[in-house]
């Protein structure tokens, strides 16, 4: 956890595109209260933009009919919501227990060196971002790396090299 309270303001108004708009309307019918749409809406924004700006949060609050502070609380509480743009390739390395025991640190060290960024950072060219995350639920095939949402199990530096080569 870090302080996630500093939001980025784009200065531009946000709105769902047609696809997300339709998805919002489909989902909102599934819940007895509109506030339940806070998490799904934040996901929709992230799908659409890759990250969530202050304007997008204000849009969600208006759309749902709740306080921006409620959306702000949720967006900063749940660590998977990106509050700034990530790299084109976003790499998450599991850091917990079984992955720790099976050498996640070598993977992190390799990526730090290879990408020239530390966990939490985005490379200058915007190509890569790196994050250490908590248990990803793939302990039986540890260590595990998640790249743009896809899981890569039983990882080691050699495999990672191959993977990076396909991504660069």
């Amino acid at each position: 956890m870090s302080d996630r309270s500093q939001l980025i303001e784009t200065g531009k108004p946000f709105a769902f595109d047609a696809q997300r708009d339709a998805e919002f309307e489909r989902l909102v019918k599934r819940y007895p209260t509109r506030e339940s749409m806070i998490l799904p809406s934040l996901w929709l924004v992230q799908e659409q933009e890759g990250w969530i700006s202050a304007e997008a949060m204000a849009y969600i609050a208006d759309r749902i009919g709740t306080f921006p502070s409620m959306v702000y609380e949720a967006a900063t509480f749940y660590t998977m919501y990106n509050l700034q743009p990530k790299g084109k390739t976003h790499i998450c390395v599991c850091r917990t227990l079984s992955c720790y025991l099976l050498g996640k640190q070598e993977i992190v060290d390799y990526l730090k060196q290879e990408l020239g960024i530390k966990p939490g950072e985005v490379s200058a060219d915007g190509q890569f971002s790196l994050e250490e995350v908590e248990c990803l639920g793939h302990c039986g095939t540890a260590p595990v790396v998640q790249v743009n949402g896809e899981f890569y199990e039983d990882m080691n530096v050699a495999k990672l090299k191959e993977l990076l080569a396909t991504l660069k």
Partner: protein
Amino acid sequence: MQVQVLSARFDIPDANKIDVAKQHGAYSTLEKVFAMQPEEIIEVVKASGLRGRGGAGFPTGLKWSFLPKNIDKPVYLAVNSDESEPATFKDRYILVRDPHMLIEGIIICCYAIKSHAAYIYIRGEYTTQVKVLQAAIDEAYAAGYLGESVAGHDYKLDVTVHRGAGAYVCGEETALLESIEGRKGQPRSKPPFPAVEGLYGCPTIINNVQSIGSLPFILTNGPDAYKAYGTEKSPGTHLFGISGLVKKPGMYELPLGLPLLEVIEKVAGGVRDGRTLKGVIPGGSSTPVLTPEEAQTVTLDYESMAAHKTMFGSGGIVVLDNTVDMVKLVENLIYFYHHESCGQCTPCREGLGWMLKIVRKIIRGEGTTADIDLLTELCDNIEMKTVCVLSAACTMSTRSYLNKFRHEFEAYVAGGAPTQAAM
């Protein structure tokens, strides 16, 4: 030792597709279910002895029977698929390999508890898994197993997938409800219990994926067939996740009650060559660690674990060998629980960060014996003073390492371990 009760379709290619799943028996028990009264189903589940597979092991049928009678509010089912306890990776197999078993279980449960709306709370990290699950739900709607008239019966059921977004605490059942309601995942004080006042203030049952996934087998084959597995007090089978420093880590379905060391040896291949066993975390990161001596007599069931002052937990077994630095392992665990503290209660919010800093101070070689004692005392001061058991998950496990491997902490204090720059 392995059995195939819940995992019967796991190895069938494309069993996540409804056609394949149906060929192999999915949804086949629904005719029988709809011919029964809801109360009868609850009795069958009670008779099966099924215990909640999320970690607490509370009897599932008994939980359902806590719903108030003559309710004038909707009843909800929340399926806990948050699976975030480190070392736990069992429910994922159901979500991906046999989601229709879960959906069938949801139908059975909802019919039994007279609910018409179920929410599957799936952890946000399960990015690919949620797609498989949602596709299966869409198939089930298309095939008429969900929606206005379930399997042609006068019974409506909607199932909605609600994604978490990176918060371990949402596996706590009331935090999960808060999260569905759109708020931060901060656990609620109990009472009121969710069965009385849960989601949207309505009676709510929260069950783990594996618990729900066990229902089709129990209803198809009867409670006795389920009880044929396991022990008297811990009947049935469990999807055990074995990970860590072991030759063949993975998910294995086993009946409850098997000897822990035998399972590690025979199922998971034992520790690596040239290494020796140093400890076993029996049921997820929060469960107190067992020394090899203690592990000798433990069997994989709720009672044996409790008798050894640890817990069955989520069945996530982690094997630790002689290369493991227990102090650094504790640092890894405290970091996790501190990271995941919801920030609501003072002891957990402030205390876990303090514990983390103390253990890091010890690792840096700046610690004193007083720091080890303080760490131990903080475990007591924090534990059970909070709304939920997240802090206890941290303190119970930390205390076990402090008690059983105190000499490793003392070695750091004595300068026996290499000092490192601030981690």
